[in-house]
């Protein structure tokens, strides 16, 4: 499984949705059965499975892995045990995953505690950078596209102009983060 990297942004969004739909239908039943057998609820299964898909995406970017079903199930089982059996419901996804030694290592999200996640406040603040800027920046820093792929998706003449725009957008975000004095604790869910 691998998403095409030459399509436009709308096509890409539909493609990503289709890939996750396939993954959901393929992998959720085994995760749901596992959690149900251990006394969990459907809501808990949903939360655990979606976190597992996030981790899977961040580790693989949907590039081919040998057995994605087993991979996702392994992450979900680990998260279930950590979050519900060890009662770490308030622990962030990155902190939980820091102890995971599954199929792949080296994701910066799984490293130090300060390299952490989301809050709706951060999302709201960064909206001020503009939708196009945030799409470009997340395409590079979250989806890990290279600049040639970004130039193609966003209609730039080449990777150099895309890079110039990326740094302009990064400057905007940096200023916003600085103005609001966002600290790492703001990124924790």
């Amino acid at each position, binding site marked *: 499984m691998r998403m095409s990297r030459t399509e436009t942004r709308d096509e890409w969004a539909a493609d990503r949705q289709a890939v996750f739909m396939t993954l959901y239908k393929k992998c959720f039943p085994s995760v749901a059965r596992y959690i149900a057998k251990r006394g969990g609820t459907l809501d808990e299964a949903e939360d655990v499975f979606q976190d597992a898909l996030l981790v899977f995406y961040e580790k693989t970017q949907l590039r081919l892995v040998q057995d994605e079903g087993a991979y996702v199930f392994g992450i979900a089982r680990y998260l279930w045990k950590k979050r519900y059996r060890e009662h770490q419901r308030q622990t962030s996804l990155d902190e939980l995953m820091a102890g995971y030694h599954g199929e792949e290592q080296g994701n910066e999200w799984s490293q130090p505690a300060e390299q952490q996640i989301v809050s709706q406040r951060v999302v709201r603040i960064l909206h001020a950078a503009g939708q196009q800027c945030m799409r470009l920046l997340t395409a590079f820093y979250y989806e890990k596209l290279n600049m040639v792929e970004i130039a193609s998706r966003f209609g730039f003449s080449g990777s150099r102009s895309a890079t110039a725009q990326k740094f302009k957008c*990064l400057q905007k975000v940096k200023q916003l983060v600085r103005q609001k004095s966002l600290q790492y604790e703001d990124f924790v869910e």
Partner: protein
Amino acid sequence: MKISLNEWQQRENCLLGDASGEQQALFEARQLLDPEFREAVHWQRAAYTAIRACGRAQLRSELKQLHQTLFTTSEHRTFAEKIRAFFRK
């Protein structure tokens, strides 16, 4: 302070672990010696974290929407019933 595209790229390489050992060492040394530079690097690192947070929030929102579709539309009724059956005592 306005910085060149080249400078942006160098800083980014150092922050994302793509720089050579020599570049990285110079980068670290400059942070020790130049408080203004150190502060700029701090906010750039925070910007990366915030951007990734937004990427994750967007994907999480898409996954929630997808779950909603699977469990509320007739097209996927068989799938939803199969899952719900696991949770019936």
